[in-house]
């Protein structure tokens, strides 16, 4: 079937079987391979993307269900070519990754958290990544990275609020 997907701000038209998951549409049809295929049944979290700004599992959705929604993948979170988002920067600094398989999903889960909660507690960070499995780090440095990114993002320059 013919569907339209909005991914990282661009609209794509593709022909897919209805059984194509959003994950496979992103990876195989749009060549956005940052969303990783781990367990493919909703347990590991490696396929996490932002769906209208909220972290969801792209393996738990068929592509036609995503039609008309705004999808953000790891390829869409950087401010510019060759740059990193504050969360990616923080992960590098705190050694928040080893093999990197879970990392794009961790970054997007953190984006989803910080978009609605700029000053999360440790418990809130743990809760936000509780659905994302990492077999290397033991999570401590990932939690540290998200806290560091949150602190930096709170202190970052923002456009002047002219309404007050």
């Amino acid at each position, binding site marked *: 079937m013919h569907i339209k997907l909005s991914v990282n701000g661009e609209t794509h038209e593709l022909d897919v079987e209805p059984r194509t998951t959003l994950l496979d549409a992103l990876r195989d049809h749009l060549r956005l391979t940052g969303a990783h295929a781990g367990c493919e049944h909703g347990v590991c979290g490696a396929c996490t993307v932002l769906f209208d700004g909220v972290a969801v599992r792209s393996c738990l959705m*068929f592509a036609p269900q995503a039609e008309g929604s705004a999808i953000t993948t790891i390829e869409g979170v950087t401010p510019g070519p060759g740059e990193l988002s504050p969360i990616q920067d923080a992960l590098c600094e705190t050694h928040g990754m080893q093999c990197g398989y879970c990392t794009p999903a961790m970054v997007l889960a953190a984006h989803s958290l910080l978009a609605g909660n700029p000053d999360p507690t440790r418990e809130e960070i743990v809760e936000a990544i509780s659905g994302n499995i990492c077999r290397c780090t033991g999570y401590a440095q990932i939690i540290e990275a998200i806290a560091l990114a949150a602190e930096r993002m709170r202190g970052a320059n923002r456009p002047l609020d002219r309404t007050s």
Partner: protein
Amino acid sequence: MKAAPFEYSRPADLDEACALLASDDGARVIAGGQTLVPMMAMRLARPTRLIDINRIADLSYIREDGDGVAIGAVTPQCVAERNALIARKLPLLALAIPFIGHGATRARGTIGGSLAHADPAAELALVAVTLDATLSYRVGGSSTDVAARDFFVGPMVTSLPDGACLAAVRFPAWSGTIGVGFHEVNARRSDFAFASAAAQVELDAVGNAKRIAIGVGAASDFPIRLDDAERQLTGTVLEPAKVTDAVRAALADIETLDDLHASSNYRRRAAAQLAARAVTDAVADAQGRKVHAH
């Protein structure tokens, strides 16, 4: 981990969804898909057609309904989780929702989808049974109500007839000095529970249980109420030792699930402990609310 081929339809309203269901025996309704999609990936489910009701706006709402709260079938779990009306009128539901899966699945998973799927470990099914919720479904043009206790009849089996589409669930709200408790045990956060328990109590002016509901989930084929314990404890002070004895006795003859993850015996013991804790929490919660109200 790829689903078998199927046709996909996105009806505009419930009438169209019911007509599509009636026209294809192998069709299944999909809403958030957070359980159906993995089942299809593992080919435990092979529907010939998916009827996607998730965008039917008339099925997404949370509103006061007499002395209770009605929730549309495709209301996302994450919306219910943050809803002020549910927090105020259905504190047990509000307490239980964060135990469902994790944030990323609650973002897509729906209230009705979880109920219709009827996993023995589903938190929403347990709360529905504990609070005596009423489920409404449509077949063709006619609507039918069914009590939660008559809805869940086996593991992933409900009394929904063929061609039916769940439309809403209504939870009655209790008045008076009420308190709630919810506990579950699982291998890791967000995983399926081995045993779970929910309790809601209403205390009278001197602190006796005027009304009590105790439910146990995940331990048996579908969530159950501990009726004998409820009868025994109503009108009493709800001392922890008496509560433990009562729930243990009520669970003694229940046939509990036995599998690789947890033995039948373990589930029975865990369920009794969790139920006792849920009641104790509910009493403390009710006493706390009373203090706040003064």
